[in-house]
């Protein structure tokens, strides 16, 4: 039976996974403290600029290492100057010839890819970089990006629900990317994949929503697609686009094509706080900076409207967590994702045997 507390209060997280921990440009030469799945982690760059992720706690007196500084390959605690290497081993204690044998903190596999810093939260031996969700448009020649990192007081699954049911554009974003037909007459299909779900929405021969009319230069009806691909547990790629109605968009062609791709990292900090990484990428308007900036402004308006929804939902769910909810036709995709997370959690619990998992407070 599906857990009906939509805010998943007290629920643990899938740990055998890569999570988006920071945008590359958020991590410079100083250590950065982040919290993922309730665990406090310090990120820093070593000499060759590759990222290191360690438990954010000196093995000596528990000061966060994010208060310290980087010394070449090492991070130095701000309190008594203990130095740790990228594996988490303490290699130097000032005034002492040798560090104690057990002076080690946890090290997390960390990788920089597509202008994102990714951290593997599970057992290090399972950290396969091939499993990182590719966001190639983040660093692609001829493509522009606009992005955001927002810390949101809401459970991450509320955000995933939103991204797998884009009928909400008709109501939440009616002044930009939404039009009534997206909710009323879309053909929606939810297809499970090995590592997630793909929700495809096609809305055919409809007037363009304001943003589409403006940047697609349409004076005609359009065929519009919204293809949300979710990767368990918390990344998504959404392709949004349109072409002249009846010009063959559904078979990959189409006249006057207009498309943008949105990359999402929905990283839980706790069961009620999420760090949301969102980037809109596009190759149209590459040479028209003022138009691109206006498109970015509208995109940020959209995400701001969503964030207001997440907070209000979380607040309502915390007030009355057990009040009943109904599901609608468009929930097939979101519900599949929730079931898949529940199944992964159950499998991880099982593989850990009777070991008690840490539920963040």
């Amino acid at each position, binding site marked *: 039976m599906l857990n009906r507390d939509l805010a998943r209060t007290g629920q643990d997280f899938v740990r055998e996974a890569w999570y988006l921990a920071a945008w590359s440009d958020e991590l410079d030469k100083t250590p950065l403290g982040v919290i993922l799945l309730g665990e406090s982690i310090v990120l820093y760059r070593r000499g060759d600029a590759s990222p290191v992720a360690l438990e954010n706690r000196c093995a000596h007196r528990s000061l966060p290492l994010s208060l310290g500084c980087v010394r070449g390959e090492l991070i130095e605690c701000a309190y008594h100057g203990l130095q740790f290497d990228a594996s988490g081993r303490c290699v130097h204690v000032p005034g002492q010839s040798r560090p104690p044998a057990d002076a080690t903190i946890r090290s997390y596999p960390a990788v920089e890819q597509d202008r994102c810093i990714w951290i593997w939260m599970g057992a290090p031996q399972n950290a396969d970089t091939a499993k990182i969700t590719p966001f190639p448009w983040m660093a692609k020649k001829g493509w522009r990006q606009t992005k955001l990192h927002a810390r949101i007081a809401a459970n991450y699954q*509320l955000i995933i629900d939103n991204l797998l049911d884009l*009928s909400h554009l008709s*109501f939440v974003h009616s002044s930009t990317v939404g039009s009534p037909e997206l909710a009323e007459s879309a053909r929606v299909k939810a297809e499970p994949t090995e590592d997630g779900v793909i929700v495809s929405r096609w809305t055919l021969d409809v007037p363009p929503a304001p943003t589409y009319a403006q940047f697609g230069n349409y004076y005609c009806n359009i065929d519009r697609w919204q293809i949300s691909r979710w990767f368990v547990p918390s990344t998504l790629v959404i392709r949004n686009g349109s072409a002249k109605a009846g010009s063959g968009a559904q078979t990959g062609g189409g006249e006057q094509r207009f498309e943008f791709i949105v990359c999402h990292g929905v990283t839980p900090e706790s069961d009620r706080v999420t760090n949301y990484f969102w980037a809109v990428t596009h190759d149209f308007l590459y040479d028209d900076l003022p138009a691109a900036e206006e498109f970015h402004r509208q995109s940020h308006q959209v995400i701001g409207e969503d964030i207001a929804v997440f907070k*209000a939902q979380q607040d309502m769910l915390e*007030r*009355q967590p057990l*009040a009943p*909810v109904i599901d*609608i036709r468009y929930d097939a995709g979101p519900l599949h994702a929730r079931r898949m997370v529940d199944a992964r959690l159950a499998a991880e619990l099982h593989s850990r045997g009777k070991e008690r998992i840490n539920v963040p407070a």
Partner: protein
Amino acid sequence: MFLRNCWYAAGFSDDFGHALTARTFLGEAVVIYRTEKGAPIALEDRCAHRRLPLSMGRLDGDRVECAYHGLVYDHSGACIKIPGQASVPQGARVRAYPVLDRHTYLWIWMGNPKLADPALIPDYSAIDTAGERTSRIRLHLRCNYLLTVDNLLDLSHLAYVHATTTGSPALAEEAVVKVVRVGDAVLIKRWQRNIDPSPTFQQFGAFKGRVNLWQVSEYRAPCYIRVSYGSCDADVPVHEDDDIWSHGAWGFKVLHGLIPETERTTHQFRTVTIHPSQASAAAIAEFKRQCDLIINEDREVFAIQQEALDTDPRGLSAWDLRSTATIGADQGLIQARRLLRQRMDAETVLPAAASA
């Protein structure tokens, strides 16, 4: 824990129009609006689908459209449309609360709707005839509503909290107090004879010298409170069986609309009817200023009391106040609490209340 099968003042009638207004009552999120014809509607303020507050949505005629996925609800709380879907699943509805306009207030019934009898709305008709001679205020109180009830039933506090206006030491020191139970009401009557008038009475009563003052607080569960103040020159005889609701030479009535927001916060909607002797606009304005000063003095006391309860290591609530220390003046409070407790106990055993 609150009494549910009763009317509470949700606000003044004119606080609500043809727009969605979010409120929290008894810990529950409620959205209130008026239909195009002006009839008040109160619904549970959360979409049955993904729990977004309906108050974030919009009115389409007399129907509410959710701001997230566009589900539409009618004024009975039934979901009547889901975009992109031919039928609406059974049970797709939100709760509707009975609401009624009366005596310038909007009253809401938070319990079993079948028991919502308009005859149970308290008699605040004094406001209806007062017309322009009223002073109103809306307050958000950082306290459990019982602290406000206590305050209004023990007016000895005027001597200390409101010493610059309606209070003087004699109100606490020299009062004769009688507590009477009349039907489902508790009356707390107070007389002070041959005392110096407090500043407000001196200012508006135009007394020559010493005065007789009287006050009555009437309580009905859960928090219907009417208070009346009267006064006359000290040489005019006052008997304790006289009509204590009369104003004598000068006085005023206060009618309180209270509704718990949470266990620790309360909405208060207060109306004061102004004595006809106050004719000039300047005098009325000055009296209103003093009324608002007084109630804000109380408001500060409430917040400090609640804070003290919340931080008490014993984990106290407003219900525990009676057990910590009772003084003589508390007799009325104790009877009022007993009345309320009886009503609440009766409600918890009624299956009708539980199924609401």
